[in-house]
Each structure stands twice: as C-alpha cells, then as structure tokens.
C-alpha cells in the first residue's frame, strides 16, 4: 500500500483581510506527477510557496513522511523548487549554479563535480557547465534550473509555472522532457500551471483550483470526462453548459427538465425536486443527423446556425428552437457535415452517458 508522502491538512493562507487560500487537504503520493491547475489568483502558487517554505500557512499543517514540516525553514526541507523565472545565480557558472545546493551542504569537491556533470548530462547540457546563465537560451536556462533542483535528490520537486516563459514549440518538447525526467528519477513532482493542455498531457493527477478553493482532484481523464463543477467543465476544453431543474426522482434516478428536453439520469448527489443544476455535454460528443433519419440514442430537434470549417474537424453551431435561443456547439469530423448549411433543420444526438450533471 502506498503511503502519502506529502500531505497538506487544512492548510490555508490569509493576507490581512484577503483569504487567498481556503483550507485545503491534499495528498501527494511518492513518485507522482501532480499538477496544480488554476487561473491566476486561484491560490496555486501560494500552495507551492507554502510547501517550499517561503510562505507560512495561516492555518493547518504540512506533513512529510508523517512528520510536521510546516514550521521548518525552507533550507531544512527536503524539497527543491524550479522557479518561474528560473532564479539562476547570475554570478555563477552553470556548473556552480547546479552544484550550489551540494556545496552549501558541505559535500566534498570531487563528489560535487561528479554529481554536477551527471545531472548536466541528464538534462543534455554537459557541454555548457562553464557558461554563465546569461549566455544561455531560455530553454537551456530552464534545464539548468531543473538540474539545480534535482541534483540534491530532493523527495519532492516543486515547479512553479516553469514553462510559462517559453515559446509554444519549446514548451511542447520541455513537457515531454519533464515527464520523461520524472519517470527516470521517480521523484514526486508538484507542477503549477494555468494551462489545461499541459496539465492533461503531463499529470498523473490534477488538482483544479479556483478562487482559493480546490474545485476537483482527479486523473486527467476523470477531470475531463467527469468534471465536478461548472468551473471545471468550462476550464477543460470546450463544453456546452445548459441550465436544468430537477423535476422528479424515483428509484435512484432523477428526471431533469432542460433545453434538451426531459432527461433521466442516475441520481448521484441526492438532489431534491426543484433544485437547479447544470448539464454539460462536450462538442465532440454531439452528432448531427438529418431530421428524417432514425437515431438510436437521445436526440433533440435543432437548427443549424453556422458551419465553420477547421480542417479535419468542423464546428457546427446549433440552435434549439424548443428552448428559447439556446446555442450548442458541436465538433464533428468534416466528412460528416458536408451536407449541412446554415438554416437546415436537423437532429442533435448524443449518448446520455456523455451528459454530465453539475450542481
């Protein structure tokens, strides 16, 4: 059984009258790649700074391997950080930057040299040890910062939006590199980002934050397919959100009145009749059919507003005439929508399994 190596228990942060982080409970397993995702001001960097020891939590405790480390100063914690702007020491060469953590701990010269060259080789900068940070490109600096953070073999590596300053192409290759590196050194990575694509492609688990609160914790698939709140549903990719009202319940199922008509779903949250909810369905789960054709799944009459060709896929905006002017976006393979033009009366179909109930 795996033991949670890093645990936040009721940790919160308040600056004066501003509550930047509501009490949160989080666990990070050994060797896990966890992304803390949220828009700016959601409290994600505050969490990282508190784990790192740069900010003291207002309430709560941080446990590492069962020991409370919340009162330990940063230099005594077995975690290392990759800072957003890298924070490389400008007066030290790359090798000295990377070896800094070893030198201040009193590691012998030969040992420092050996481990520095080892780690520099790992990040592909073996030939840059004698350079100064200002002589390197952004991506190289990034890798120096990484090398510096992992050379002391920390139990947890904290990464504060490390890819934010890189251009798109470099970013993609750094994502792969980071993930690969994490697999090789088997260290817990806590990765902060505001980019949901980054989070989905890299993480074992994602912690979604908003307004100083944890919205949802789960694997990328769980979060994408089973968003726990309207915010999460909107934040990850495109989503169609429509309002609904609980109209009846029986035998563990509820009936919801919505612009899609009356839909029946499993009642997971024990909602009362009359409760307001939100229904979400992803554009890629919607199919568009001619009005006359038979369809096995759930379908609603709709009118085509516009068809936008996007290459391999096309986006169709549908209006639901039965429900005011509610608009729904569908994303289809282009081959499936050559027949449709604006004004066509069609059927919008999707499987009820792909409908998510949010409240």
């Amino acid at each position: 059984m795996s033991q949670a190596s890093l645990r936040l228990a009721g940790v919160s942060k308040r600056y004066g009258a501003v509550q930047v982080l509501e009490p949160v409970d989080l666990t990070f397993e050994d060797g896990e790649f966890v992304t803390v995702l949220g828009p700016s001001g959601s409290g994600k960097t505050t969490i990282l700074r508190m784990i790192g020891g740069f900010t003291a939590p207002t309430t709560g405790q941080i446990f590492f391997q069962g020991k409370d480390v919340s009162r330990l100063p940063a230099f005594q914690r077995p975690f290392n950080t990759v800072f957003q702007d890298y924070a490389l020491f400008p007066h030290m060469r790359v090798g000295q930057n990377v070896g800094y953590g070893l030198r201040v701990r009193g590691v012998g010269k030969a040992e420092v040299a050996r481990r520095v060259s080892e780690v520099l080789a790992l990040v592909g900068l073996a030939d840059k040890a004698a350079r100064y940070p200002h002589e390197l490109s952004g991506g190289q600096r990034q890798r120096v910062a990484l090398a510096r953070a992992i050379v002391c073999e920390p139990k947890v590596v904290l990464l504060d939006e490390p890819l934010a300053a890189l251009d798109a192409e470099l970013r993609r290759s750094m994502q792969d590199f980071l993930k690969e590196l994490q697999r090789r050194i088997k260290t817990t990575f806590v990765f902060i980002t505001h980019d949901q694509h980054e989070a989905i492609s890299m993480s074992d688990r994602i912690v979604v934050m908003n307004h100083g609160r944890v919205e949802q914790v789960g694997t990328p698939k769980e979060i994408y397919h089973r968003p726990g709140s309207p915010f999460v549903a909107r934040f990850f990719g495109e989503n169609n959100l429509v309002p609904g009202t609980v109209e009846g319940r029986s035998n563990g199922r509820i009936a919801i009145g919505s612009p899609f008509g009356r839909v029946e779903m499993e009642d997971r949250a024990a909602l009362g009749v009359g409760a307001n909810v939100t229904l979400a369905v992803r554009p890629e789960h919607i199919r568009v059919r001619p009005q006359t054709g038979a369809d096995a799944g759930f379908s609603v009459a709709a009118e085509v507003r516009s068809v936008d060709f996007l290459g391999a896929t096309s986006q169709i905006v549908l209006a639901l005439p039965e429900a005011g002017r509610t608009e729904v976006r569908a994303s289809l393979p282009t081959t499936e929508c050559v027949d449709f033009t604006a004004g066509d009366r069609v059927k919008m179909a999707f499987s009820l399994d792909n409908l998510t109930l949010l409240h």
Partner: protein
Amino acid sequence: MSAETSSPQMMGGPAGPVVLGSVERKRKPLVGRFVAGLVYGIPTVVILCPMLLFLVSSFWSIHDGNLNRHFTLENYARFFADVSYWGVYFETLRLAAYVGLFGLFSGYILAYLIWRQQGQLRYLLLLFSVIPLAMNYIVKVFAMRNILGYNGLLNDALIFAGILDKPSKMFVFNQTAVLISMCVIYLPFAILPIFLSLERIPLNLLAASADLGATAGQTFWRVVVPLSLPGSVVGALFVMVLALGDYLTPQMVGGSQGFTFGRAIWSQFGMAFNWPFGAALAVMLLLAIAVILLVARVLSKMGRSS
C-alpha cells in the same frame, strides 16, 4: 495629414503650420544634428574644455607675477622634486581611502539593515539616512566642528561615560578630526549606491538559495555579497573621490595639522596666485582619480565573473 493637404494654399500666409507639413521630412536630419550637437556640445563646453584648459595651463608658468604661456614642465618638476608635496599627496590618498573604506563597511551594514526591512519602514529609514544629502555642506562641517570641539558633544559624552576625566583636544584641528568629519559627512553618499546594488538583487535568488539548503549566513556570503559588492565598491570609490577633492572640511576642522592636497591646490589658486602650479597639482589629483575609477572598473568586472 491636414497640415500637408492645406499647405499649398497657405504658402503665402504666416509661417507656422505650413512649414511643418511640407518641410518636416527634410528637416529631420537637421534637428537630429542639432540634438546631437547639444548632446555632445554641452559636455564638451562645460566639462571637457575647462579640463583641457587646466591641462594646458599646467604647462605654463608664472615669472615675477606675469603669466608665461610657453610650454614648460617646471610645475611638474617642482611637484616631483618636493618631497613635502609627495607626502601631502599620499597622505591625502590614504585619508580618502580610509573614508572610502569606512563608507563601504558602515554603509554596507546600514544599507543591508535597511534593505532587510519590510514595506514602508524600509523607505522611511532610507529617507532618514540620505536626508543629510539635502543639507548644506558648510552646515554639516560646522556641525561636525561643534561635535568634535573642546566643549563639544563627543567630549561631553566621553566624560559622561567615564572614559575621559576632562575634555580632550585630540578630536579637533588635526588629521583625525578631518577623517572623522569626512567619514560622517560622506557616509550617505555610500549608503545610497550600496542600497541600490542590494535592491537590484532579485528576491527569488534568496528564496532559491534557501530552497537549495543554504543557511541565512551562506546566502549572505555566497549570493548577497558577491552580487552587491561591485556596486558597493564603486559607491565607496565614489566617496573616496569626493574626499580626495574636499578642501573645505580640512580647512574648517583640520586646523594647521589637517593639511590635505585639496588645501594645497586651493592655496596655489587663492593665496600664492600661482595658477599654473595649482593646475599641475590638480592634474596630479585628477590622475589619482582616474586610477581609482580604473580600479573600480576592474574590480566590478572581477566581481561579476568570480
């Protein structure tokens, strides 16, 4: 646009906007040349020319009270031949070096303490420490004379503390008095550049250092000092240069013993009326300053690459 289209009709009218529209493009290089002329001209006229004049006049001579404008090295020969001038020259260099060193150490400690403060207190303290810069120089020297004098604050304090039985005359009208006064008067000039060089250190470098396991002391010696030292040394050398040329402080608190090279130059201009010799002495002082500034350059380069 509007000026351009209306310009043909308004050609004959009063100048103003008409000229702007049509001639603007041709004028630009002229304006550029004018600005360049100002940029290079003002320093040339105000700084370089007087210095050149000094340099030239240091090769002239005075005979029987008349200025002789023929090239001669006699002023420099006189300086190099007279050991007493050498003595004052190096004595003054040493004095200025002490003032610079005091500025470096005390200024660094004060600037560091101010830098470590949070929020408003920090800038309040900084303001207090540099307020003396806005005060009149003469007032400050007089204040120092009062503090150091026979019946001054320093003697009172030492007697009160039981260190002295009776007031001492050792604090005023000698070289020590000049040193103490200059140290106090020039300290704010050191604090400001040192504070600025500390302020330039990104705070996340300190966070990174702590994150990598460095104690506060290790962070101070391995990150803060190396990064702020070049700027601090340059600040201290600046103070040294100020102290080198100062002739008023020595005059007012130094008495007959507190003789400095600045006073020697001043006496050639103000009393002996031997301007060429005074100019030669000033050139020698300028050479010392040039050497100091060169040292500053080399030091700050070394600081950056170590």
